[in-house]
């Protein structure tokens, strides 16, 4: 069995009023991940340490944080991936308002998700089914791997440095919109919304979202850039506009509008 070693951690402790990095020491063991170390601190030293987690298997996307300044899932980051003699810094996701310690308020993402007009398939075929071929949905399946850890939203500088969490869809929702736009059965045209409401133009292709995605979704090349090109087809390409005028263009989809959302009222 490998020899145990001690690891030094600097963990952010605080809330929206302020906070600091506090030092902890934990004993490591083979296969230990950063989330294990946080749990160890919680169990043995600091029961009030707040951390959001669930599956510990990289599937739920709950334990997103910044480890040595890089957005990562704590449950998928091995302690052995860091030099032994250096402390490991664990801080909450910087782009979202802090609640306590490592827990942030990611509700801006849920509000953004609610704004996306839902999938509306064409009518079923005569035998009561829809048919799609594999080649038609290959691209979309990649986007379905998303676990909504929001690391891409965290690292996106439009949200992180320019504070546009409520104004810009961000990478997670741009691939959701791309998945809908590319869907062979969908009948809604969301491109105007992608341009004006979800503001795809804010993205300047710096690819940080792709770099941090734990599911290795090629967000930029397969989602955002194709979406930008599709918006360019409709709004920035005079040549296509002329061709559409003469040929009628491809079959028109129904224009989508932002859903009117009703605030839930009443006491809990």
């Amino acid at each position, binding site marked *: 069995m490998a020899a145990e070693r001690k690891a030094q951690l600097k963990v952010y402790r*605080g809330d929206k009023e302020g906070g600091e990095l506090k030092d902890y020491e934990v004993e490591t063991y083979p296969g230990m991940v950063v989330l294990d170390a946080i749990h160890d601190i919680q169990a043995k030293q600091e029961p009030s340490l707040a951390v959001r987690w669930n599956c510990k298997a990289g599937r739920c996307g709950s334990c997103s944080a*910044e480890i*040595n300044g*890089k957005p990562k899932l704590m449950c998928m980051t091995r302690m052995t991936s860091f030099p032994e003699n250096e402390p490991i810094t664990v801080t909450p996701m910087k782009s979202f308002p802090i609640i306590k310690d490592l827990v942030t308020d990611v509700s801006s993402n849920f509000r953004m998700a609610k704004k996306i007009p839902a999938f509306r398939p064409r009518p079923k075929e005569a035998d009561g089914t829809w048919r799609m071929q594999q080649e038609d949905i290959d691209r979309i399946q990649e986007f379905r791997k998303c676990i909504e850890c929001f690391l891409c939203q*965290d690292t996106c500088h439009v949200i*992180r440095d320019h504070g546009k969490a409520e104004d810009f869809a961000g990478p997670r929702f741009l691939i959701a919109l791309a998945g809908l736009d590319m869907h062979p059965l969908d009948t809604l045209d969301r491109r105007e919304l992608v341009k004006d409401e979800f503001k795809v133009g804010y993205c300047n292709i710096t690819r940080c979202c792709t770099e941090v995605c734990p599911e290795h979704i090629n967000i930029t*090349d397969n989602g955002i850039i*194709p979406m930008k090109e599709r918006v*360019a087809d409709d709004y920035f390409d005079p040549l296509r506009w002329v061709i559409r005028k003469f040929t009628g263009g491809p079959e028109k989809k129904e224009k989508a509008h932002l859903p009117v959302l009703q605030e839930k009222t009443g006491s809990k």
Partner: protein
Amino acid sequence: MASKSVHLPVLQSGLGGTLRRDAWWVGPAITFVLLSAFIVYSTWRAFENANFLYGPYLSPLYSPLVDTSWAKGWPIPVSGAMIILIGPGSFRFTCYYYRKAYYRAFAMDPPACAVGEPRGHSYKGERGLLIFQNLHRFTLYVAIGFLFFLWHDAIKGLVGWQDGVHLNVGTLVLTMNAFLLSGYTLSCHAFRHLVGGNVNSYSTATAGMLRYKIWQKVSKLNMNHMAWAWTSLFGVGLTDFYIRCVCTGAIHDMRFF
């Protein structure tokens, strides 16, 4: 109601602010140096307006040959390269890969992932002044046109000699340049969109399966778009430099047959 993001001092803000410990600045620094070097070199060569033609060899910075005699007497000398470079220059400027490269290295917007930048809530991205980046596809059409000239130059470097067919180092250099630029141009994201990326249902679209197969091939090329971008940039610089050296007599163009 939307809650406001609270940035705590310990979480490092401002230009270069980060808790990252790796050498995040190396990539942008290398990009800055290499792109600056190419810009300086190509600008100098464009103003030099000489040493670009040797036998059938023509420098890619001056290809195709443009007659600039109409600009005689202008306060600033006008060379063919100054006109030529607008085409490939705008293709590279609006390229989705180079955008990442120079937004990081030159505009520091951001300098690297999870590294702070000069804060600004007036950010417009590519919705303001930079909205013209949406016209990348038109620069692609121009770049595809240039490929014909460059392959013509490469073939001319083989068969364009007065005494028959030659295979020289210069022929190989011109061919390599045309090959690398073809790889870069045909791996472009806008080209990928054009050949099939804009189709939603390949199984029912006109020539859908053919477009799907082409799209798949271009997608494979596209995965290495960054490598094509850099190698083709070096290719252009080295090809021009080689032809200049041959023109000035600094090196002898070795002949294989």
